[in-house]
């Protein structure tokens, strides 16, 4: 063996010796940017994540099993707790699924109220995203601005339904028509309160204003662009492969929106565009949601202008029993496709309820997309997927 080769070998031996094993970093379940109780077991080499394994289930509340021993009216109170930042939006597909099973249809006014409230819930959810995402990138102020405006949205929802987060306003065959079941409270209609339509229009003005403000403060900010443009790119085929839906899919250039595809609510009578962006990176996912708030405000403006009059609920039997059969009904939640597979054996309760929750499916791309990300990018990517842990674990 020549000296040169020996030197070469000894050097390589040294470099092998110096190769340090990856550090296992436990991110969560108690971590500021995991949106609750998500846990990531990350292998990190310095700042670079080499491997990541999401651990979910810390917030499992067993809603699918609970639903098997709850009547349909009681399940409504459960399903709006799945994705609590947009409670109303997750009620609607379930109720419409039950209506399909029972063969009833809500009157037009109820459908319009459902549509207005769904869009308000969508705005509330996106405002939470617009507030929390800059926070993950270190900007604290957009949080307060967006949450301040969300308060106006929640006030509108509360004014109609009585609840800010958990409206529980949908009933099979329409929306909650009257206050109670007694001879006096039966006459107290729960139609839209006076001045609601005007207040909704005012709130939409505020929404467009806060979108501009957030654009000024966040979207146009060069530092935000440095942090998000080109980070966490999900190509179109990968997005479809992993079953992403909602804004995460649309940011990858797929113009797929269940509001246009499914006919749950009278969206076909409303003129609005599907917001689509081509890049598929964090910045696109972020800006697309601002655009969706603008579109939602367009929808609400048109809906309050053309809301028809009429009853709030069709005639339904006093004891709700869905006939034997099964149905899958899905709607466009703020976070994507939200579906319920209801199997009925003809009782007051479903035999089985499968909840296809959005965040769970959107989360499945995490191990792929977090490969070789830096830790700051990990936080940025995770935030841009916009999941709620209650929606992941159900």
């Amino acid at each position, binding site marked *: 063996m020549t000296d040169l080769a020996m030197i070469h070998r000894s050097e390589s031996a040294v470099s092998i010796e110096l190769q340090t094993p990856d*550090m296992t*970093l436990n991110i969560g379940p108690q*971590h*500021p*940017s995991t949106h609750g109780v998500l846990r990531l077991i990350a292998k990190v080499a310095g*700042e670079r994540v080499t491997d990541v394994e999401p651990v979910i289930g810390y917030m499992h509340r067993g809603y699918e099993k609970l639903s098997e021993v709850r009547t349909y009216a009681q399940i409504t109170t459960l399903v709006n707790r799945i994705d609590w930042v947009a409670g109303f939006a997750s009620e609607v597909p379930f109720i419409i699924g039950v209506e399909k099973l029972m063969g009833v249809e809500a009157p037009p006014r109820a459908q319009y109220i459902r549509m207005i409230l769904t869009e308000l819930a969508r705005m509330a959810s996106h405002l939470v995203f617009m507030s929390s995402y*800059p*926070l*993950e*990138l*270190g*900007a*604290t*102020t957009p*949080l*307060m*601005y967006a949450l*301040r405006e969300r308060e106006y949205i929640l006030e509108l929802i509360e004014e109609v339904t009585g609840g800010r987060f958990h409206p529980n306003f949908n009933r099979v065959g329409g929306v909650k028509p009257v206050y109670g079941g007694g001879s006096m409270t039966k006459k107290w209609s729960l139609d839209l309160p006076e001045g609601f339509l005007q207040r909704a229009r005012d709130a939409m003005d505020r929404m467009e204003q806060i979108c501009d403000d957030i654009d000024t*403060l*966040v979207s146009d*900010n060069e*530092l*935000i662009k*440095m*942090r998000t443009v080109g980070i966490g790119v999900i190509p179109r085929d990968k997005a479809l492969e992993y079953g992403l839906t909602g804004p995460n899919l649309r940011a990858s250039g797929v113009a797929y929106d269940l509001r246009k595809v499914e006919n749950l609510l009278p969206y076909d009578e409303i003129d609005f565009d599907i917001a689509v962006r081509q890049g598929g990176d964090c910045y696109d996912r972020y800006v697309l949601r601002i655009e969706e708030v603008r579109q939602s405000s367009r929808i609400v403006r048109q809906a309050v202008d053309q809301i028809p009059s009429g009853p709030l609920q069709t005639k339904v039997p006093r004891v709700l029993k869905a006939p034997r059969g099964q149905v899958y009904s899905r709607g466009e939640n703020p976070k994507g496709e939200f579906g319920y597979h209801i199997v009925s054996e003809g009782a007051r309760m479903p035999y089985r309820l499968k909840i296809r929750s959005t965040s769970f499916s959107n989360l499945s791309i995490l191990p792929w997309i977090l490969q070789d990300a*830096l*830790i*700051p*990018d*990990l*936080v940025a990517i995770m935030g841009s997927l916009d999941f709620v842990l209650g929606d992941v674990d159900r």
Partner: protein
Amino acid sequence: MNFWLELIIKLVAILGFVLTGALVVIYAELKAGSHMQGRIGPYYAGVRWGWAQPLADGLKFLQKEDLSPTGADRTIYGLAPYVVMMSTIAVFVVIPFGPDMVGRDLDLGIYFILAISSLSVLGILMAGWSSANKYSLMGGLRAAAQLIAYELPLVLAAAAVVVQAGTMSMNGIVLAQSETWFTVAGIDVAMPFLLKGQIISFIIFMIAVVAELSRIPFDMPIAESELTMGYLTEYSGIRFTMFFLGEYASMIAFSAIAATLFLGGYAAPGVPDGLANLVGPGVMLLKIALLVFVIIWIRWTWPRLREDQLQRLAWFWLIPIALANIAVVAIFKVVF
């Protein structure tokens, strides 16, 4: 005057100034930050405007248990906050608040400051290493990398001023700025270095200061959403208070340095020499307050950068520009 008496008076004055100054800046940050967010911030502590909130916070921290993790290196863990605090307080020794109101007017004032302020990285690294926490370790390493990278632009920006002033003494730099620049209609006009062609140095210096302070947009070492406060993760009680006060005290210290180097220090136009000792501190505090407000303002508006982007900014942009700036300043100094 008796040497020991003088020493004690100066010690008490500097300590008092640092601690009250830090509390005032904490209050300013709470109040200005919350108003920028459309909130009102502290309100009840004290009788009006929540002025006693920093004091109440401090008292609360003192009551908390002083935890240290099982795996921690106790000695180093306990020592780290004091190293950070010490390096901050030592800076105030040479900062002049008036012609005679200075702890000790060293000939090498600015050199002393730059040397002693970089000691704080030692304390931070100690804290990060000894906490026996992975997040703390990463935060400490980030802080070390960041502070080393930003020492250079800081020194180079200050060097440009030193070249123009021709002295390293802080008092000398102030005096150089109060020299008559030109005379208009019999009135002598003096200009701070900021307006004497040091604007590039000033910007570089302020960027480096924000990075040294680990504040947004350069707060990666403590990045709450990534590293859950980095090297501060395991600290509680009085040790956390030390870090906390140290952060705000060094904010004042660096603002004071920037005010001295670029904004003319205690010198104000139209103040006769006899009154400089009286008016000087007020002028100096005003300039410090201005710079502190800008730092606070930035913190409540901008997001955070990434560690590699921060390094790129320092090595690719700030240091070359600062070097070129020194060359230009030196040429002007020689030619004119």
